[in-house]
Structure formats: C-alpha cells, structure tokens
C-alpha cells in the first residue's frame, strides 16, 4: 500500500454521517502533452490502467482538466510531510535487494510497455527506517510516447524492441521475474483492450491508434518471457 501526501486538510463536511468526511486536497504532479511528448497524458493513463490490472506498484493518478487543457495528475508518493527524492541508477541494486518482488514487477512491466526511462523515476525508502515504500512514477516515455513520434513508438512496440538500458535489468532475482511474467501472460485480450481502448480520444490519440496499441501489447504479452530474457542478457 502506498500512501499519498495530503496538501491541505479542510473542514469537516456538514452532515450526520458516521464517517464524518473531511475536505482535503492531495499533492499532485500535473503532466500535459507537449511538442516533445505529444501523447504524454494518454501514455500515463494507459500505463496506470494496465498496472492496476496486474498489481504493479505505480503511483496513482487521474486524468484532469484545467485551464491549460487535459492533464494527467500523478499523486505525489509517500504520504510524507517532506517529499522524497527519486532513486538514481546507482541505488537500483539496493532497491532490488530490499524490494525484490516489487522491483521484479516494475521491471517486467517496463519490458512489456517498453519503458527505458526508469532511472530517476522510482520512489523508494532505502534508509534504516522500516517503512515499506516503493512506487514507480512517470510513464510518459512509454507505449506511444517511447519516441517523440507516435508511429515510430508503435513500430518499436510491434518490433519487440526492449528497454536495453533498464537500470534494474541485472539486479532482480529471476524467480520473481518469472512470477511476474506469468501474471502478465495471464492477462486476457479483453482485459488489455479495456485498459488501452478508452472509447474516446485523448490529445492526438484516436480509436484507431489505440486499437493498434492494444494489438501490439497483446503480441508483446505472448513473447514477454523472451523479451525479458533478451533484456537481461
């Protein structure tokens, strides 16, 4: 369970409810499509929907609308009064030792969605405190956002490209990797389609592209163990 940081705790809502609801707001990082990242919001939403289906420890988020258009609001991880820094590449071995199953999940998931941008995009507690805290963040450069051109990203996904520089590739125990490969392999076609084909367009990502992505992910699911092996070798 990952907790999220409350930005402001407001007054209790009027009413006689037993739970006595309280208004509050959470800290988020707002992400938006840009010239360099034209399908950022879509990639974030779909990566999260896929991760939730499997149980990958990723930071939660929600699509949101503001003055500047559509955003992906990624909740700030930790539930701490002072935010945590990101985990650098050198610390990945330590993360894998402390959280072997979680890191295996993140690694296998990254291979599946073609995420080669995990360095500095992971929050984890590596201190002497026993707080269990690990969460993957930032999936902007995955799926259709792997390259700045959506078609190039789709092509890479179809071509079984793997995240060759993934910082966890040499650190996660194989036994955990195999478990998570099986979890993803067990995903049904329908489940993948439900996560990827949203039924509406986001940014420049329309139904046709979403269907192509679902197809690529189904193909990658079927060869996932080989792709993971190829990433680790």
């Amino acid at each position: 369970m990952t907790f999220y940081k409350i930005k402001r705790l407001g007054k209790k809502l009027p009413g006689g409810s037993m739970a006595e609801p309280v208004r509050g707001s959470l800290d988020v990082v707002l992400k938006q499509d840009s010239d360099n990242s034209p399908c950022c919001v879509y990639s974030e939403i779909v990566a999260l929907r896929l991760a939730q289906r499997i149980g990958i420890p990723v930071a939660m988020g929600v699509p949101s609308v503001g003055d500047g258009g559509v955003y992906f609001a990624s909740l700030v991880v930790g539930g701490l009064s002072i935010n945590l820094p990101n985990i650098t590449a050198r610390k990945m071995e330590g993360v894998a030792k402390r959280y072997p199953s979680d890191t295996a999940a993140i690694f296998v998931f990254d291979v599946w969605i073609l995420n080669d941008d995990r360095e500095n995009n992971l929050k984890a507690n590596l201190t002497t405190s026993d707080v269990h805290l690990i969460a993957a963040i930032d999936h902007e450069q995955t799926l259709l956002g792997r390259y700045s051109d959506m078609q190039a990203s789709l092509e890479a996904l179809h071509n079984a490209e793997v995240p060759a520089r993934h910082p966890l590739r040499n650190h996660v125990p194989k036994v955990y990797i195999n478990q998570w490969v099986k979890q993803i392999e067990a995903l049904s076609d329908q489940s993948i389609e439900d996560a990827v084909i949203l039924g509406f367009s986001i940014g420049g990502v329309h139904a046709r592209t979403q269907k192509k992505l679902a197809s690529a992910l189904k193909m990658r699911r079927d060869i996932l163990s080989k792709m993971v092996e190829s990433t680790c070798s």
Partner: protein
Amino acid sequence: MLLTQRIIEVCLISKDGVTPFAVIVEQGEYCAWSIASGRNHTTSQQWNGHVLAAKERRPEEWWVLDAWKEWLDEISQETPGSRICSLMKLERETPGIVIRQPREVHTRLPVGAIASRWRRNRLFERTEIIVAEIAHKLARGGTAHWNSSISINDCESLKGDWIIEQKPRPESDMNFDDKISEIGDSNMCGIAIINRVGCEHIESVKDQWSAAKNILKEKCPCNVVIVKNDSHAEVSDLGCIIGERFPSPVSLAIAVVRSQWYAGCY
C-alpha cells in the same frame, strides 16, 4: 588564486516561504554538499527545527532526511552537466521542492569548506546555532554553568562570563511568567537563548528570576540567564545584564550573529 564556486540551494516551499534545507557547492569537477541536520553525515539526525516549523513537517520522518542525504551524495558524484539535469528534473517533478542558485563565491577555500559554512549560516536559523552551542556547553556535566567562556563554532569567540536563560522557543512573545511556567511543565533541556535586558527592566527581571531560579534548577539542570561581563556591562548576582550597551531586551544571539554577518566573519 581565487576560484569561482557555484552555490546551489535545495529548498522546501510552502505558504510560509522558501526554506533552504540543503546546499550543493560546485567548482569545476569538484562538488560538495551539506544538509540541515546534525553535524555527522553518517548518522540519522532530526531535521533542523526551523525546517520543520513550516507546513507542519513531522520530526518522526527523520528517515526522509537520510533519503535526501543519499540523493545528495549520489548527485555530487555526477558530472556537472548530468547533475544540473538531475536538479532540473527534481524541481520539475517534486512538488514542494525548488532549486535556487543564490550566488557564486570567489574564494581560495575548497568546496567542502564552503558547503560547511553555507550549512552553518544559511541552513540553520542562526539563533539556533548559538543557543544549541550554549545549551550543549551547559548540558555538559548536567549542571548549570554560571560562568562560561563561549565560542561559537570557529567564529569570533564570545569571551566573558555568561548566564543563560532557557525558553521554550527563541523569540517567543510570551511574557516571562508564562515562559517560566512552560519550561517548568516541560522537560526541555536543549534550547537556550541569550537575552539582553535593558536597564529599565533590570529590577523586574531580578525579581522574576530570583523567584523562578530555584524552581527551574530543580526541573531543568541548565536553566539560567546569560549575561556578558565586560567593560560595557556588569553581571549582577542574580544574573542580569546591566549596562548601556543593552538598550532593549532583544535577543543578544541575534544581535551577535547580525554583527558578525555584517563584519564579514561568515
């Protein structure tokens, strides 16, 4: 030869303002860092009080400080270009954190020395540095030091005889009786503050202190008032400042640090 060093501050932002809590000092390939914790970088320390003060930050989250130490250690080993990328990414993607580059310094000192000085002078509330130093001296041996020669870090020594008055918080605006009451009810023994007392207040302070002194000494072993005893001021038996140098009851700690700051001691 003077070398140019770049100072980078990592700050916490809140509605109360911007609070620097770590510093990175760069000079070419050399890099050093420091953070607002205790002196020993290898052990866990509480966040410094003024860093915690804003935004209801919680002291039990000391381990987050350790996480930041590890992160600083990591990026201090990166190349300057890579480090600036990491800092920009940090600022962009970590709410509540902002990076500032307040200035460049031209010095002969190594980056480690500048980082250490910056930590002492910027990452801590200056009053806290002095009161912590004094409290440490007083707490040594567990008895009150009615006469003590005080030296603040490597800055100008504050020679003389001193008596320390402890308060719950520096610069508290409670009246004296309230302060005594609060100290008496708590078990605080680590915070001390130096008070200047104006001539017009001497008699009342003497009376107050005389009444409270024994009670305080029973509950907190180092509850005393500090007074400087030199040509400009006298120390009374009851531990009050008398002299024309002390026109108003403001904190001497702040005044001393301010004068040293302007005199270029930092």
